[in-house]
């Protein structure tokens, strides 16, 4: 079985999810993930649909375990976990794969993401400020600044998404086919 390893960095999970599905469309299905390192296995193109989920707790937490067990029961495979992120896939032949079919859960998910990005962004910002007068850290600071900028953009993007979802929720229920 052919495999392929790709190294990539994603700041926002949405782009990552889109990329994983594009890879799956061309016959490369994600098998494992570890810090920038994606390992793909060659399968029939379009066999799987991928989704990325952010858990409320670490995967070892009983609540997370119960959720992942449930996903397994309904035909969703947990491909890999990384910190609180989990990579999920479902066979495309089993129908469309969305994690949520109501606005409230989607809003909750966006809030978890905003919180995480905010915390990571803040930590990077602190590093930048702490190293402003450090002549030896000039270059690493630039990296931190870039991370802060990208996360700030992502937070703004997801905040806008929450606002849109709340607006839609005020009108009615989500259509399942969407």
């Amino acid at each position, binding site marked *: 079985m052919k495999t392929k390893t790709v190294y990539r960095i994603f700041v926002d999970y949405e782009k990552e999810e889109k990329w994983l599905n594009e890879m799956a469309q061309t016959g490369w299905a994600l098998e494992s993930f570890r810090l920038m390192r994606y390992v793909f296995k060659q399968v029939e193109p379009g066999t799987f649909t991928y989704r990325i*989920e952010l858990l409320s707790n670490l995967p070892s937490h009983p609540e997370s375990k119960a*959720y992942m067990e*449930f*996903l397994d*029961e*309904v*035909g*969703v495979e947990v491909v890999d976990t990384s910190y609180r992120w989990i990579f999920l896939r479902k066979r495309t032949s089993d129908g*469309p794969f*969305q*994690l*949520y*079919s*109501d606005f*409230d*859960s989607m809003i*909750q*998910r966006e809030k978890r993401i905003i919180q995480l990005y905010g915390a990571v962004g803040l930590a990077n910002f602190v590093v930048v400020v702490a190293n402003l007068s450090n002549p030896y850290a000039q270059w690493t600071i630039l990296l931190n600044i870039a991370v802060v900028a990208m996360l700030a953009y992502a937070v703004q993007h997801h905040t806008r998404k929450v606002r849109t979802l709340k607006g839609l929720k005020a009108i009615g*229920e989500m259509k*399942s*086919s969407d």
Partner: protein
Amino acid sequence: MTQQSNTGALTEAVYYILLSLQVPRHGYGMMQFVQELSNGRVQLAPGTLYGALSSLVERGWIRALEGTGRKKEYEITATGREALRSELRRLEELVQHGHEWTKELDT
């Protein structure tokens, strides 16, 4: 924590979950039932279903059945059934009003 009043309209997901749990079912069974019943219009996504089941158990409207094989099964409780009935009354009122006030539009 059981409360019957204090809730307005049920979400479509909760309404259909309660309907499906008149008989014990596991998660996948609920998804199948709801999809077939609504001719594919309502599809419970796994994350939504899981979240709804957790809050319904917490409310005491449904309960998890002990030791029923590998897949966890759920069943509606008396409180849940009461909530379902009162929602049905609310829906009937909505439908009745809808018909009354759109009659002239139809003709």
